[in-house]
């Protein structure tokens, strides 16, 4: 009905009120975005110290009981899942472990004799060295209270902090092997950057051949032993441990001998300068329940 007049139901006041509410809404959004950017800027400039970090640490301490409680609620469900998952893989894993046990038994005798001899020689030479693992470390056993969310953050939160002696760069292990290192710490919680983080680099060596390299993140759940030249010999099945030496570019923060993983594939191409050594980590980095932070008991 083009000719009919349309009755306007809204008064000028209603339109003015609506415009005002839109302005208020946008103002609130602007304040929140600016607030978030300000926090981000301050946090980015001093991620491990300063007033904001202290406030964050206090907040993390206050939230910790809730995280622990949530973890306890979820534990039965997680255990049930792990039980069924473990059951399906138990048979093949058992056969593999039996094989490994036989090899390890044979090696243990050999290593025991060697270790005894090395200790005696060290005493004779008055050999000075940095903290050795596990003798010069006190484990701070703690539960994992937060997990990496998505592919961006390869970090976990643990329920122990500076009050337990943990500092930044403290190595973190579990029963299977190296997990990562502490990169942020508050009095009662800490952040552990996992080996699978793109920024992580660990000086490592092949226990059998003595070849050294850098452990970095790889595809999927694997790691890569990088910087190994083509002339060197690395075999599938070799055990990789921490090197314990200091590199200027990638300062090594781990003592010698923490198990990292086992070589699962060695490859190379004509144009590559280095071998591609794929390593399966001993520690299951995707499903960590509890870990131990290694606090040195020896003065550096």
């Amino acid at each position, binding site marked *: 009905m083009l000719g009919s007049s349309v009755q306007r139901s809204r008064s000028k006041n209603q339109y003015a009120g609506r415009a005002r509410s839109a302005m208020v809404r946008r103002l609130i*959004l602007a304040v929140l975005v600016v607030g*978030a950017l300000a926090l981000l800027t301050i*946090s980015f400039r001093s*991620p491990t110290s300063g007033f904001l970090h202290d406030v964050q640490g206090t907040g993390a301490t206050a*939230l910790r009981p809730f995280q622990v409680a*949530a973890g306890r609620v979820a534990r039965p469900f997680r255990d049930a899942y792990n039980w069924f998952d473990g059951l399906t893989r138990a048979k093949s894993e058992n056969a593999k472990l039996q094989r490994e046990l036989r090899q390890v038994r044979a090696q243990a005798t050999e290593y025991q004799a060697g270790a005894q001899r090395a200790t005696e020689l060290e005493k004779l030479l008055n050999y000075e060295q940095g903290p050795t693992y596990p003798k010069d470390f006190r484990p701070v056993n703690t539960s994992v*209270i*937060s997990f990496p969310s998505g592919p961006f953050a390869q970090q976990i939160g643990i329920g122990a902090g500076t009050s337990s002696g943990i500092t930044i760069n403290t190595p973190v292990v579990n029963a299977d092997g190296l997990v990562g290192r502490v990169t*942020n710490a508050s009095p009662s919680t800490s952040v552990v950057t996992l080996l699978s*983080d793109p920024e992580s680099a660990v000086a490592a060596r092949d226990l059998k051949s003595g070849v050294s390299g850098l452990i970095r993140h790889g595809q999927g759940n694997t790691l890569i032993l990088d910087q190994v030249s083509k002339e060197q010999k690395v075999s599938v099945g070799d055990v990789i441990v921490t090197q314990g030496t200091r590199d200027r570019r990638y300062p090594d923060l781990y003592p010698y001998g923490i198990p990292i993983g086992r070589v699962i594939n060695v490859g190379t191409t004509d144009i590559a300068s280095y071998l591609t050594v794929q390593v399966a980590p001993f520690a299951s980095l995707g499903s960590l329940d509890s870990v131990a932070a290694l606090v040195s008991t020896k003065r550096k």
Partner: protein
Amino acid sequence: MRAVDGAKAAVLLFVAAIMQVSIFAQAHVLGGVPDLLLVTLVAVALLRGAVVGAAGGFFAGLLVDTATLGQLGLTSLVLTLAGYWIGRYGETTGRDRRHAPFVSVAVVTVLYSFGLLLVRFVLGEPAPAAAMLRGLAPSIALNLILTGAVYALVRRLLRPLDRSDLATEVQLLG
């Protein structure tokens, strides 16, 4: 919005944030991770509008960054924008539509992932786009599975407002 509603929304987002960092972040399925906090925020924003969505996103993000000792403000920034945008959608075209929560969750999962990637890239942090893209489809599927139950729960606690209570600029015809 009444103070009781605000308190309910705050409790919902607090519980969702704690559950996200303590439980759901560990549930990796085919490379994807369910995001209970994002789904809860979408539900709250759809039912209570842009202001509550933005404020809820800001404080929920702050909670996540604090609990994980992550970079303060990073999650807040992205969740604030996500909450505001979904709130506006709820106040305007998405109002009274049954598919709105599902569409919102699917779209916001994509935008949230790209938003985080972009902010991390700008900050010079590791931003593995390939890994994010691989896990995106499973993450959307997992979030959609959560949506029905979470939206029903949130809707039960936060009853939909009258139209007159919503701050609208786009009036739907019909």
